[in-house]
């Protein structure tokens, strides 16, 4: 029998190197994962790092800031109206004496929440339709024609019409703030999923022909498991990139709606609304126009740079350069 260990084997001359390899010290660092590689590449992109840091700072300032700055955004102090920057009001006050710093933070919370929620909705719709169209051949034609149709719709006019039409009924059933929030998020989400769907569909079509999908199918993987386990993890990178672009797009659209007077109600600050309100006082207090505008632009700029860096980092052909 062979179960007794062979005590000693004389290595032949050719096997000496092989035994050296066996004797070499074990690697102490674990092999780098995919995400570590992505992070390494991402750090080399200066613009993306700067964008990421600025974005995190804005998010922190907007969501954590109110914990340190206790002035109410809606508190009216009419005697202190139209003031410039001072210690009591670092960003000055508006025409009703409301503190601009508090209003900027409150407005930022709304703008950011709208941007992120609308982006998630658009991403969900886009990925769902993209995966379905790419994976199931029977649905492909129908879904892609629908996508083309949505792409041919004039979006901004339709958004305006949608807000105009559904504002009243939603206000009645959810209250003025929640109602308009739901309306704007849904309107933006429903009108901006198309690019994601197209990109995801293209990637899924290519993935479906790969050997590992064939292998998975040959061991009897069901469609649901196949999509969840094999397809989706491989289309994460285009989805992540379009997520960043989606945030930027949603923030700009929400501000544009507010700017046209068809967004949130007047006493409910968002960055677009603050900008719109300040336009009337442009000659006396130009800084009130510039602050919200700068906040919107800086957020969108940082998100765009972030997306640029992520695109490069997630593309294995560029990685390592």
């Amino acid at each position, binding site marked *: 029998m062979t179960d007794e260990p062979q005590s000693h084997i004389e290595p032949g001359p050719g096997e000496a190197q092989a035994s050296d390899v066996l004797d070499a010290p074990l690697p102490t660092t674990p092999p780098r994962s995919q995400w570590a590689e992505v992070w390494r590449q991402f750090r080399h992109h200066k613009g993306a790092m700067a964008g990421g840091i600025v974005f995190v700072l804005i998010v922190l300032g907007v969501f954590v800031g109110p914990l340190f700055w206790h002035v109410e955004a809606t508190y009216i102090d009419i005697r202190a109206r139209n003031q410039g920057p001072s210690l009591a009001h670092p960003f000055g006050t508006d025409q009703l004496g409301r503190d601009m710093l508090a209003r900027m933070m409150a407005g930022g919370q709304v703008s950011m929440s709208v941007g992120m929620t609308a982006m998630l909705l658009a991403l969900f719709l886009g990925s769902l339709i993209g995966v379905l169209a790419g994976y199931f051949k029977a649905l492909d034609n129908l879904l892609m024609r629908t996508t083309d149709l949505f792409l041919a719709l004039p979006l901004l006019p339709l958004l305006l019409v949608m807000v105009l039409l559904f504002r009243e009924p939603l206000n009645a059933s959810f209250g003025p703030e929640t109602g308009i929030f739901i309306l704007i998020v849904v309107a933006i989400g429903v009108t901006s999923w198309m690019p994601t769907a197209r990109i995801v569909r293209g990637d899924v079509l290519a993935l479906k022909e790969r050997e590992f999908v064939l292998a998975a199918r040959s061991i009897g993987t069901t469609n649901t498991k196949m999509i969840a386990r094999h397809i989706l993890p491989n289309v994460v990178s285009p989805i992540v990139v379009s997520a960043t672009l989606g945030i930027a797009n949603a923030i700009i659209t929400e501000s544009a709606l507010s700017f046209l*007077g068809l967004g949130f109600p007047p006493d409910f600050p968002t960055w677009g609304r603050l900008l719109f309100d300040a336009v009337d006082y442009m000659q006396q207090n130009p800084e009130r126009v510039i602050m919200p505008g700068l906040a919107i632009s800086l957020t969108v700029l940082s998100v765009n740079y972030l997306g640029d860096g992520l695109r490069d980092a997630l593309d294995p052909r560029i990685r390592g350069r």
Partner: protein
Amino acid sequence: MLTFTIRRLVLAVPTLLFISLVIFGLLQLAPGDPMAQVPLTVPPEVKQKMREALGLGDAWYIQYWKWIVQFFWVEPQVFLDYVFGTNFSEGKLRVLSWQTRSPVMEIVVQRLPQTLWVVGTAYVVAVLIALPIGVYSAYRQYSVFDNVGTFVSMIGFSVPPFFSGVLVIVIFSVNLGWFPSIYDTTHRVVDWDSFVVQLQQMIMPVMVLALQITAQIARFMRASMLDNLNQDYVRTARAKGLGERVVVLSHVLRNSMIPVVTVIALGIPQIFGGAIITEQVFKVNGIGQLLITAIQANDLPMVQTLTFIFAVLIVLFNLIADVLYGILDPRIRYD
């Protein structure tokens, strides 16, 4: 190529019909009542008659059919009458605005020149600036010029027109007082002085619109040039001893222009959409401003017609872009 164009044109008809149906369906849900402005002393049965006169008493599909007939059959007849002096359209009902009770298309025709003038100039200016920037920053990739250009086009992407517009107003009209902040559409150009005034009032809206368009097209031009610059035919051209000017400007540029031209065509309808905000900022009374006032005044025929015109523009320029691509690039065969 011709069969492809015809097939696409035929396919565009159901697309446009469906879009018009979607818009119409949305507007059917509108809560507003066009009779809300009529005094309360008018008895309800008279109001009902007035509603029916506006075609509101019918079922939705009849209203939709009437709109289709008016837009696709009566309005072209009016156009023919206008051009050739015939009288096909006599006594036929046109699409009427609820605000002014006058034909929608007449108002659109009044507003169109302002929009076309401002938007068109901006687009031409933007393309003329963007192309050289894109070419040069691709040729000197990662140089200072390229990095600055990339940063500026990132800013052009990120700064929304309602901020850049207000910002240039604050700088150039409030602080410096160089240009008027309001675009005066009644201004007539008769001599040199009035031409200068026209130029002054156009600079700011054109600047704001052009910044956005330049950013997009310059980035696209740069990427397209970079794709081509490393190809074998470029090395061959250099190996033959052609000068850099000929290699870049006639070999590489012509090949890189193919996708850029289609992007330029695709961008035109989006500009009309984006111009809604710019027109609002500078108080240009063009189509975008007309749409906003119509939405606020619940003027449904006007909103329906304008939105549909935007949709027609998008479908049309998508088609033009596809056809252009096929004409410019002989490798692409649709049939």
